[in-house]
């Protein structure tokens, strides 16, 4: 079986390989072919004739696709599992605010709020968290979209995907992430209770409000104004002792839920305006963020 080349080395010929492939060789023949194939490039190429070219092409294409497409992170896979479109997930994953630095800042802030609660241990234990948590998504969204923040902002402006849709997608990602983190922080408070979740509706209301405002003024300014308004509202309404605020009362919560709904309506009505401004904006030259 096989043949010997000019240098005296044994090679499997097409006939032997065919017999091997069809299972017509005995054990010794099989083994020598297998051992030989792993080390002999010339004989490996002969094996090509034994495989359906269409099958090789199909496998190759599937393989190239699998290798090109980035391995999705856990969150990305989960979102796809939940039925979110693959392209939407990719856009979400590119949210600049989702980088480690922002997550770290949010986690640190929340950790301090929880720490403060444990130190004071009094009736005001939850106040820090309640006041700080609604600000986090605002800060996050502010660093999620815009010139100088999003590296592809300039290219994005010249692309047909609506900028408001992009902003909303990013806002949803940031809001989702910070809400999860704040919820985790709430569970670590010394005294659990529904009061510890008092930040949720204000957080939603403020985010919606700032997005609605962003249809009229610069997004960054919109987030700043909303955050400022919240700080003032907290400062004015907190009444010691023991510290409490009408903002976290039942009436306050209803008010924030209403605010969120109203802002959502405004957003939907005015989104076209945002597209018109942003997409075709008149801001001065974009300062590209350079690569480190």
């Amino acid at each position, binding site marked *: 079986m096989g043949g010997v080349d000019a240098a005296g080395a044994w090679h499997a010929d097409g006939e032997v390989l065919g017999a091997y492939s069809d299972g017509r060789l005995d054990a*010794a023949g099989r083994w020598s072919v297998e051992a030989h194939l792993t080390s002999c490039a010339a004989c490996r190429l002969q094996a090509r004739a034994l495989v359906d070219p269409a099958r090789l092409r199909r496998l190759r294409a599937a393989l190239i696709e699998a290798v090109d497409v980035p391995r999705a992170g856990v969150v990305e896979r989960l979102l796809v599992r939940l039925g979110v479109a693959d392209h939407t997930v990719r856009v979400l994953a590119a949210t600049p605010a989702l980088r480690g630095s922002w997550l770290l800042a949010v986690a640190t802030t929340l950790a301090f709020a929880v720490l403060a609660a444990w130190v004071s241990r009094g009736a005001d234990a939850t106040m820090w968290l309640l006041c700080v948590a609604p600000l986090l998504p605002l800060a996050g969204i502010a660093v999620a979209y815009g010139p100088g923040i999003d590296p592809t902002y300039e290219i994005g402006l010249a692309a047909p995907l609506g900028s408001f849709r992009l902003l909303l997608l990013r806002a949803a990602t940031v809001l989702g992430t910070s809400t999860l983190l704040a919820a985790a922080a709430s569970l670590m408070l010394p005294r659990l209770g529904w009061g510890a979740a008092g930040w949720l509706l204000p957080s939603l209301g403020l985010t919606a409000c700032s997005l609605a405002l962003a249809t009229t003024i610069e997004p960054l300014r919109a987030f700043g104004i909303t955050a400022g308004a919240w700080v003032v509202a907290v400062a004015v309404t907190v009444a010691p002792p023991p510290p409490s605020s009408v903002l976290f009362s039942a009436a306050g919560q209803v008010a924030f839920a209403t605010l969120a709904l109203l802002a959502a309506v405004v957003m939907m009505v005015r989104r076209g305006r945002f597209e018109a401004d942003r997409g075709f904006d008149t801001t001065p030259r974009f300062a590209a963020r350079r690569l480190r």
Partner: protein
Amino acid sequence: MRPDRAPSDAELLAAVAEGDSDAFGALYDQHAPWLLVRLRRRTADSDAADQVAQETFLVVWRDAGRFRGQGAVGAWIWGIAIRRLVDLQRGRVAQERLAGLLGRRRVSDVASAEEQALVRLEHREVIRALNRLSPELQAVLQATVLDGLSTREAAVLLGIPPGTVKTRAMRARAQLRQDLA
């Protein structure tokens, strides 16, 4: 890589480790055919063979940098493929598991003495002795010697208890020694 001569497998693999897509394509063209042919001799299910081949090359893409440069690249690739097949047989398709497996137990990329002997089966006695073994003993020897699987892995691939693999391997070796003595 110099363009005036076909790059060796090891050079291709080094380029793949650097993220070179062309080198990966070339490596696939070199190794996919024989891999599919050899897998045909391990499983009758061609869909399973396709899956194993695909996952094997994905591991090659990811772990190209781990190849130590000892032995043939083909042997390294087969080591990955046969373990993918074992995993598939186990019904454990999770790639992470495989990665863990590869991390723990390095695929031996040095051909064993037995393999080396098999490459040159010029001795009629060896051929006769091997062929005289029963199919069951041949299968066990193939899994443990040629494919380099552990007893447990061979047991999964052949669908027999690990104890049986051990006893059959011992019997096969004893019989070979006796025949060649």
